[in-house]
C-alpha cells in the first residue's frame, strides 16, 4: 500500500492520477471495494470514533488498498467540538498505523511528492 498525505489542495489527487489510476478506481471518502481511496479523513470524521484508538477498526478494511490518500488534519488550533478533536486525533493515529504497514509514504507539498518512507519513484 502507498499512503499519500498532505494538506488540502496540495496535489494529492493529481499525484494519484499521474500514477495511472482513473476515476472509476477511486473512492472519495468512503471505504468500499475500489483499490484507491481519497479523502480518508472524511471517512474517519463520518465514522465518529469515540477514542483515538477506535478508528483502528478501519485499519483492516484499508489493508488491501493500493493507495490511501488522507489530508493532514492535525495542524492548527485544537477544535472546539469534542467529536472534531477525537476525529482529528484518530485520523492522525490511523495514518501512523498505516504508515508502519505501507511500503511507501508520500507527502505531497505544493504538488511535489516527497517520499518520506520507501524508495523513489
Amino acid at each position, binding site marked *: 500500500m502507498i499512503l499519500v498525505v498532505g494538506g488540502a489542495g496540495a496535489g494529492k489527487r493529481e499525484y494519484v492520477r499521474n500514477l495511472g489510476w482513473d476515476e472509476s478506481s477511486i473512492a472519495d471518502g468512503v471505504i468500499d471495494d475500489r483499490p484507491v481511496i481519497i479523502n480518508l479523513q472524511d471517512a474517519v470524521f463520518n465514522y465518529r470514533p469515540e477514542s483515538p484508538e477506535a478508528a483502528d477498526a478501519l485499519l483492516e478494511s484499508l489493508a488491501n488498498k493500493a493507495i490511501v490518500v488522507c489530508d493532514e488534519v492535525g*495542524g492548527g488550533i485544537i477544535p472546539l467540538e469534542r467529536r472534531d478533536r477525537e476525529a482529528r486525533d484518530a485520523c492522525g493515529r490511523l495514518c501512523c498505523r498505516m504508515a508502519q504497514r505501507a511500503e511507501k509514504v508520500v507527502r505531497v507539498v505544493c504538488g511535489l511528492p516527497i517520499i518520506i518512507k520507501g524508495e523513489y519513484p
Partner: protein
Amino acid sequence: MRILLTGGAGSGKSEFAESLALAQARPLSYIAAMKPYGEESERRIARHRGLRAGKGFATIERYADMDSLILPTGGTALLECLCNLTANEMFDDAGAERDAGHNNDAVFEKIVRGQDALAAQCSCLIQVTNEVGRDAASYGDGTLRYIQLLGRINRALAARADAVYELVCGIPIQLKGTVV
C-alpha cells in the same frame, strides 16, 4: 543537547520523543504541562501515562514557571508540550490574557528563559510542540495572539536546538541537525 519535536495532533510526537529519551542519559524526567480539566483530558493523560509505563520516567506535573523547576542534574527531560505551557502562561484559569496590554513579550521571555533553565540542568532536553498555525479558520484576537506567540517560541527554541524534527504519520522528518 536540545531537541525540538513538532507535528500535528496524532502525528506520533510522544512515541518518538520517548524513544529518543530512552537512548539518552538517566535519570529520565517527564514534565507534563497539560492541566487536567475534565474527563477528556484525564483520558489523554491516562493514555500518555500508559505509553510511558515501565520505561523509567519520573513524572513531574508542572503547568507553568519552568524557570524555577529543579531537575536531577545530568539526566534527560522530556517536556510535553509547549502548546499547553504557552496557554497556561498566557491565559489565566478564566481564559483571560494575563498581559492586559496583549503584548506577551514577558510571557515569551519567561518561557524561553524557563527552557534555558531546564536545558542547563540536563544532558538532554526534549521539547514537544505543535503546529497551531496550520489551519485557515478565523479566530478571536486572543487566539490569534496565542498562535503568534507559540510560533515565536517555536522559532526561538528551534534556533537554540541541536536537532529539530517534524513528525508526519509517525515518521520523523529531520529539519535541523542530528541526534547522536
